[in-house]
């Protein structure tokens, strides 16, 4: 069955001024859609024709992996953010943040540094490893922590297309704005 572009849960202009409607128009309407179109073409007649995205991420290589993971990563990214964001709820997840990073502020600092420091295109993840510990993971291009058996909780797209229209070369400014709209309630629920 062909993959389809998932609907956004908010209006394309509702993340402004951090992420503009224009960026969304391309990022969601062209890049995300493009990965879906490519994937649907590439899997025809292959072992992945009826596979789930997760199976593709775990087992595929080359173009099928790249496009499949990009489809999953973008859908997950849209679900990580919402207009105005939401505050970090008290509970197991916030305790885990304190346990594994010292404090929420230290986590933010480390996550931001990982975003600024990822060279080239890619994704920065907060994930839960097999032992339940939280980790910040930098992945190039389409990389996804599921492939290492880890559970993704939050991701920031640091491909230049995610911010170039709004921030140009100033990736740290984009990351700062991204962190203002993270839906921490959703992230905590995934934990």
């Amino acid at each position, binding site marked *: 069955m062909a993959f389809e572009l998932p609907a956004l849960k908010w209006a394309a202009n509702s993340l402004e001024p951090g992420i503009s409607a224009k960026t969304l128009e*391309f990022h969601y309407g*062209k*890049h995300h859609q*493009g990965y879906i179109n490519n994937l649907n073409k590439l899997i025809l007649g292959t072992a992945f024709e009826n596979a789930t995205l997760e199976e593709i991420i775990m087992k595929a290589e080359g*173009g099928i992996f*790249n496009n499949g993971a990009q489809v999953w990563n973008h859908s997950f990214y849209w679900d990580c953010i919402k207009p105005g964001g939401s505050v970090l709820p008290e509970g197991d997840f916030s305790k885990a943040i304190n346990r594994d990073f010292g404090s929420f502020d230290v986590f933010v600092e480390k996550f931001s540094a990982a975003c600024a420091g990822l*060279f*080239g*295109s*890619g994704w920065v993840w907060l994930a839960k490893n097999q032992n339940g510990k939280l980790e910040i993971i930098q992945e*190039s*291009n*389409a990389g996804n922590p599921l492939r290492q058996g880890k559970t993704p909780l939050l991701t920031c797209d640091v*491909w*230049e*297309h995610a911010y*170039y*229209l709004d921030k*140009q*070369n100033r990736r740290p400014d984009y990351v700062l704005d991204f962190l203002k709209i993270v839906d921490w309630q959703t992230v905590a629920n995934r934990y």
Partner: protein
Amino acid sequence: MLNKKLNELIFPQLNYEYSALEPYIDAQTMELHYSKHHQGYFTNLLNAVKDTELENKSLLEIFENISNLPVAIRNNGGGHFNHSLFWNIMSPDGKRAPSGELLKAIEKDFGSFDQFKSKFEDAAKTRFGSGWAWLSVKKDKSLCVCSSANQDNPLMDVSECKAMPILGLDVWEHAYYLKYQNRRPDYVNNFWNVADWDVIENNYKLALNSI
């Protein structure tokens, strides 16, 4: 530039105005690309080698040993060389097709100039993520087309197509996003309108002499 000691490198002048390559490459992109991205790589390279024995090495020596050096040197050294080459092989009013010895070599190794172009365009369009497409001269003097990730280049010991690059096209999104957004193929196709084959032919001669 390749043979100069790193502590003697200077940030290269751009030989044309930011707006000179319009409409194919817009002035805002040129300004950011040159004065922010390239300048950033250059500054970071100098900082990475400052007060180390590496500052007395050349880019060529560094690239040939890049797998043993810190990743900051690979990224920023590549970033500096690649962009310097890129600015040079473009011009507002150069020769738009090869002739002479380089044309002969292209016909020998690719069949025709058009066949070369489509092979090069393919390399540039299909590079996933950030990177570069290259035309290079191999040790046996034949030409080859390849692409590399991020700021790697064919001079690096990690390269799968080890050779002397004479033409490079930047396909990082920052190279085209303001004007072309997701349409990288349009940017790649339009690149031929600003490629300067006088310079590329000269690079070819220099490459042959250095082999």
